[in-house]
């Protein structure tokens, strides 16, 4: 397997080699949904790197021997292993493949985002989601390589290792892919659920957004504007425009920085009705593609183009759905149903 796979060539079925995020971005690309272009540093690249590391001094047995209750030992091991991941030279062919792909992706030196992409189903569990890393506005190939390495190293964070131990995952199944994707200089960005997070209603789409990069919404540092849009009707049934005090923007030397929003911008809605409806269209398209409600991260670039940064199945309500009874059972005759109106409330 190659060290690099382009979005257009992978799909959700390739999760074992490109991770959930990489597979999902590939799947979206193939479905004709606009995502910022990019490639995945595959599990093969990681494994090549790891075998070099293992050859020097085995890692896996150390993690497998860890007692998840012993935080002191976990911390010490984590420091040690992460340092090793950061110091180990990257195999030359992996490094060349990554540099070549980066050069192709960023012909004009555009900045990229580097995001870890976990390979296991469980990694999508909310408890694991926060354990992975995302690095924004990475300016050059050298830094990109460091960030990829950091993503790999995150597998050996205290939280990550103790989680695996508690779940008793075999360490030789642990792998990680990394997504490298062009950055969107977002005018505004946010998240979208293709069902209601509060009622589970599948007939509405909830959209949240704020000025600047989506990281401020995902991290919860800014209270986003919130809309509820009819999935089928396009009615905008709820508008909550919040005071968005700040936004995250690219920093000069790479990375991001938070800046205050100007007074007139703070309380202005970050999306127009037309943009909301365009987002709804994209949301419906993705949901239709996957056949189930989605949890989506989106951004709007300065030209007003919608780009998706992530889409994953909604999980909380999906679990409740599986347990819930039908709303109402069919009757022998349709009009028997009217007894629920005329027959009085059954106490």
């Amino acid at each position, binding site marked *: 397997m190659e060290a690099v796979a382009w979005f257009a060539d992978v799909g959700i079925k390739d999760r074992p080699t490109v991770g959930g995020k990489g597979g999902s971005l590939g799947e979206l690309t193939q479905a004709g949904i606009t995502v910022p272009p990019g490639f995945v540093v595959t599990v093969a690249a990681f494994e090549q790197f790891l075998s070099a590391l293992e050859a020097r001094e085995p890692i896996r047995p150390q993690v497998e021997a860890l007692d998840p209750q012993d935080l002191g030992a976990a911390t010490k091991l984590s420091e040690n292993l992460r340092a090793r991941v950061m110091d180990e030279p990257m195999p030359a062919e992996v490094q060349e493949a990554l540099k070549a792909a980066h050069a192709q992706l960023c012909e004009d030196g555009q900045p990229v985002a580097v995001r870890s992409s976990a390979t296991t189903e469980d990694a999508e569990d909310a408890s694991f989601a926060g354990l992975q890393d995302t690095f924004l506005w990475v300016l050059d190939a050298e830094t990109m390589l460091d960030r990829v390495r950091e993503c790999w190293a995150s597998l050996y964070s205290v939280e990550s290792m103790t989680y695996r131990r508690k779940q008793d995952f075999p360490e030789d199944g642990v792998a990680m892919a990394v997504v490298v994707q062009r950055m969107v200089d977002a005018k505004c960005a946010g998240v979208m659920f293709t069902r*209601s997070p509060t*009622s*589970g*209603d*599948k*007939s*509405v789409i909830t959209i949240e957004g704020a000025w600047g990069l989506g990281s401020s919404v995902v991290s919860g540092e800014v209270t986003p504007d919130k809309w*509820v849009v*009819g*999935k*089928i*009707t396009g*009615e*905008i*049934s*709820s508008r909550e425009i919040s005071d968005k005090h700040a936004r995250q923007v690219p920093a000069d030397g790479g990375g991001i920085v938070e800046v205050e929003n100007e007074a007139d911008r703070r309380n202005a809605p970050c999306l127009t009705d037309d943009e909301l409806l365009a987002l709804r269209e994209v949301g419906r398209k993705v949901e239709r593609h996957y056949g189930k409600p989605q949890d989506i991260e989106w951004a709007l670039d300065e030209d007003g183009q919608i780009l998706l940064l992530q889409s994953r199945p909604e999980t909380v309500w999906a679990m409740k*759905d599986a347990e*819930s009874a*039908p*709303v*109402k*059972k*069919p*009757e022998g*005759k*349709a*009009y028997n*149903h*009217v*007894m*629920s*109106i*005329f*027959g*009085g*409330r059954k106490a």
Partner: protein
Amino acid sequence: MSDTAKSFPLPSSLKVTPGTEEAQAAYPYYCQFQPGDDERFWFYNSMHFPEPMHHFDMITAEAAYCALGAFNTRVHVLPTTKGIDHRIINGRVFIGGVPVTDPEEVEARAAEFQQRGFYYYEHWEKLYDQWKDKMKALIAEAQDLPKPHLPDLEPIETTHSGKGVAANHALIETYRKQLNGYYQMWHHHFEFLLLGYGAYLTFFDFCKTAFPEISDQAISRMVAGMEAEIFKPDEEVKRLARRAVELGVDQHFTPEMDIDNVLADLDTVGNSGREWLGELEKSRNPWFNVNVGDGFYHYHRSWNDDLSMPFAALPGYIEKIKAGENIERPMDKLVEERDQMVADYRELLDTKEDKATYDQLIELAHRVFPYVEGHKFYCEHWYTNLFFNKIREYGALLRDHGFFEKEEDVFHLTHYELESAIVDLMLSWSSGSEPLGPSRWPAIVRQRQAAIETWAGETVPPALGVVPDVIDDPAIVMLWGITRENLDAWLSDGEADPNELKGFAACNGVVEGTARVIKSVKEIDRIQSGDILVCQVTNPTWSPLFQKISAAVSDIGGSMSHMAIVAREYDLPAVVGTGNASQKIPDGATIRVDGGKGTVTILAHPAEARELEEA
């Protein structure tokens, strides 16, 4: 008033406004509040009777409640509810339901209902066809009633044919037939109505459970019929606009036109003008028998009585036709959109069972809805116009005999009093002496006129008496949309923002603009392009105006009202059922209408609005 002990005033605490006692006492005894009424819950029927009642117009309330109750209580035998009692004080109609609460009685009634109501559902189409025949026959009967007239001497034919009945007898005969017809019309009106609403509401409840955040409008849109009678009047105006262009007489129709002059001119400009007049006649009968209100008051006149509404729309339509724009309702597209919506919601359901139930309910709703949408044209519009115009003929006759100053004064008499005045006139014609009415009625008419003016300025409590824990009366929930939640909102009305009004979200969209508060059709020429129409009732007969305005707000109407359905077709942001927007919003104010949320906000009062404009 403390938060814990909020309640509505008791009926006994309402005082008749000083100076209006006699006008109040003249309403029939059976609709005066009684001491025992304090034990019950009443609410102000502002939906159907938003203005103080002329004494004659109370016939609408009593005929409607005679019929509604008969069908609920004794014909279909609804399990949990009987009829509606009504009372009037200070010109305002309060109504109270009669719920059935004894479980055994509910059970017994449920068994009856399944024999009766279910029969209607089973045979709906056949019975509805039959209904239309009955209604048309009833309308034809009313149209055939002679104009009341007293000749000086009986025509010689009466003698030669041995008729044996003189002209004065026809006065009371026609009057009673007309009254009978009106009462009967209301029976027909309620023959299907509750069953139709019930079937609709069953689908509505299913949708609200399956899709907790679905809007009322979305459900209405899935159920709405596309070919309902109520769309016809506006379609006829469009047809007339098209014919005017085709016949080359369109230059006669301008925003400043005088309708009488236009009609006279068209009669003299040759065949094409007369052909257009012929087309107008075709449209007028029956489709211009729509009134500009909801038909519950005598002064809700029809397009036929006053052509200014349809004519106001002609220049705009003509202009669009000449510009090559298509003004027809895209029927195929509308049907396709509706069916697509039904299919899209269905797809979101998880289980086969839910899909099967959904199919049953939407099919039933589609079966019953033609009646729900169609009956109003025959009942509240066509028949009601005939009825009030017949009473007007009596008004003219009595005026000619000195009973009152104006034809319209007749509506200040109750229907019993009117019958007595007719008998008075019959007696005097027969005896050859002077009637006594002229010395009796003018003072009474003046007194009642004054009372109505007084009452019109009064604030009316939304409800009276004991607040029920739950409202489980399907009739009240369906017809008035009253729920326990509404009542709580009414009770806390004083704490709400005085510049914000709430109503039913009828059609999505947010618009800011100048409020044009229109109290009668005579004022429609005040509406400028882009204004927001604010009025008591907007029904589809106002739809010709929809091409001109940017949003609509009304005091009455629900999200499944015809107004709401038409507004959605025109994609016109609208909030209906605000209760009192036409009183609270000053003409010329700058307002914001949020048709998705159902709110109307006063942003600037007229003076401020002008300052803002000048600044």
